[in-house]
């Protein structure tokens, strides 16, 4: 016990470099998500909150956030544990997200821009299956 405490004390006091790379966690941004009326079946790609990483459009990565992907409305929902609220993330600020450990593997979704002349352009998330080599 004493050994562990001493080792913890010495390593926390010295040898740690606080850098502008590690000191700041990027912020997620969105609006309150209010679930719609009950439906048959689930609108979610993953019914359970899943530990995920989010790639922001500024190139930064937000790691280990509980996410659900509502495939029906094409929105990413974040469960903000500190406030106990569900937040619909602003699509324009997200380039993609990674659901970790979805059925034992990481599933990647990338945002694409869908041009549409009549209904107006939209942003959609598509699941990435292949990465072209070379």
């Amino acid at each position: 016990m004493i050994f562990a405490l001493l080792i913890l004390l010495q390593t926390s006091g010295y040898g740690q470099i606080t850098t502008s790379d590690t000191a700041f966690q990027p912020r997620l941004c969105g609006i309150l998500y209010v679930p719609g009326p009950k439906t048959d079946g689930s609108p979610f790609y993953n019914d359970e909150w899943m530990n995920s990483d989010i790639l922001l459009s500024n190139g930064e990565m937000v790691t280990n956030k509980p996410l659900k992907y509502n495939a029906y409305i094409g929105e990413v929902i974040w469960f903000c544990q500190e406030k106990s609220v569900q937040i619909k993330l602003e699509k324009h600020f997200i380039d993609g997200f990674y659901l970790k450990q979805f059925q034992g593997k990481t599933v990647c979704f990338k945002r694409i821009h869908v041009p549409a002349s009549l209904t107006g352009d939209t942003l959609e998330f598509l699941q990435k299956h292949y990465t072209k080599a070379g």
Partner: protein
Amino acid sequence: MKHSAKVIIFSGILAIFLSGMAMAQTDLHSEKVFAHTDREVYVSGELLFFKLYIVDAVTHQPSTISKTAYVVLRNTSNRSITEMSFQAEHSVAYGSILLPDTLSSGVYQLVAFTHWMRNFGESSFFTKEIFVANALDRDLPVLNSLTERKILEQDSSANKLYHNDFITINCDKINYGQREKVMLKLHYNSGDADTVANLSVSVSAFVPDNYSDSTFADFFAAANPSSGKSNFNRRPTVGLPYIAETKTEVLQGKIKNIATGEPVKSCCVIISAVDSMVNLQYDYSRSDGSFCFPMNDYYNDKELVLGIRDYQEEENLQILPENKFELTSAFIPGKFYGNEHFKQYIKRSQDVVRICKTYNLQATAQELPLLKKKNFPPEIYFKPTIKIFPDDYQALNDLSEISKELLRTVKIHRQNESYFAILSDAVRHESFSEQPALFLDGVMIKDLDRIIHLGSKEIQRVDVVNEPLYYGQEYFPGVLAVFSKGRMIDKIDPGLASVHLHLQPNTRFSNDLMPFPEGKIPDNLPDFRQMLYWNPSINSKENQETNIEFYTSRLTGIYMIKVEGITTGGKAVSATTKITVE
């Protein structure tokens, strides 16, 4: 028996603790900065050229920590003359400082450091004395005071030449004629295969019988703890409060209670740039009252406003942003001494500067655009629910009228002489119970009373977000953002114990000296340059020769060629030699 067991256990614990401390100390990467300047003596109105090398304090290899370096030029009264920050690329930065025409004659100190080095005290900062003579000060009385101080301790290092084994300078001749081409060969040989030396070369008129600046190799030797003359404190002063600027610059500061002077924790400190979009970062103050923000290039050259969210005046708080250029240690000059040779040298320099200025022949360095990074502003919404431009409609007297006529989802009420706004919530289809987040010119403000008087004449645009917004953990019951035509935020106090700041933009320079990058001034112009060559960016491979060419001027005398640099293996490279122009 019991006693000896206790001793063994205690010794074991102590041994582990001490070894851990030693290990942690080894892991502690501090930095050093060395500056190579083109000269040591200047005339006001000239540019001081320099190159900064940022190295790991332990390995002496180019540092991978800081990407920004700070330079302060101060006088003997410890007043800053110039404060600049420079973007470092591959652990070097170079640039120039304009010495103002009005600068009085005297000794000045150039101080160079990184934000990370603040953890190790100001004694770890690089310092160098330079002498600046005012262009109109012909009597130079300041030299008399220098003589009195220095005459007792003649600097034996003055006039010395220096070279270490890693680099040699070979000139095609020793004596040159006026305006003759000089060809130098630098031969780099450190014994470490596959290493590259990053060098800077200066060639300038030799200052007789005076202070000779220490070389990069001297600097390393002096800072080596084993030499016994280290002034470099590797241990942090108190913890590691200053964040290393590895990626972006940072802004740190503290919140304190004005009445008690005590630090205040758990305050939501916010920062916004005055802009045509709402932008915001927040941080909660820690137990020591400290807060910090990453400052990417978006903030460069912008007016910034710090505040405390939900601030009540009775809280009596003050925001104290860090002054990144602050120096608390005193500058005590002591390297220059004034003798007749020095006086004559300065007078000649004053004449030379006057001629060069008349014919616009002064060397300058071209400022380059900063290295481009993806720097997005920290927006809290992408698209407002409503966006209006009051100029598109009939003129309205104030914000209350604008909301009534043009903003159907905003209700402004008056209660007890104060105005407040309530938005309708488009998500829950009801009205918010709290006032929305209010912004003026991109900056959060405390209450509506501060902007209620603004009408169509003053307002350019109004954004309304009718949704319950979250930015990180911060909740905003909608947003009402007003953008004024004439930066009203400069005149209106946001009311959040606000502090206005202006971040100095980083600078980055080319290594070409203007107006004659090729070094040859046309024959019809009076060429009396004292600084014949300055190149802060030469890369020399192991066992390879680097050729340098430049032209002498019409100014006869001795010139000092100085090469400084660092190898990728962490070795200092220093060499000096002299040539004569007859």
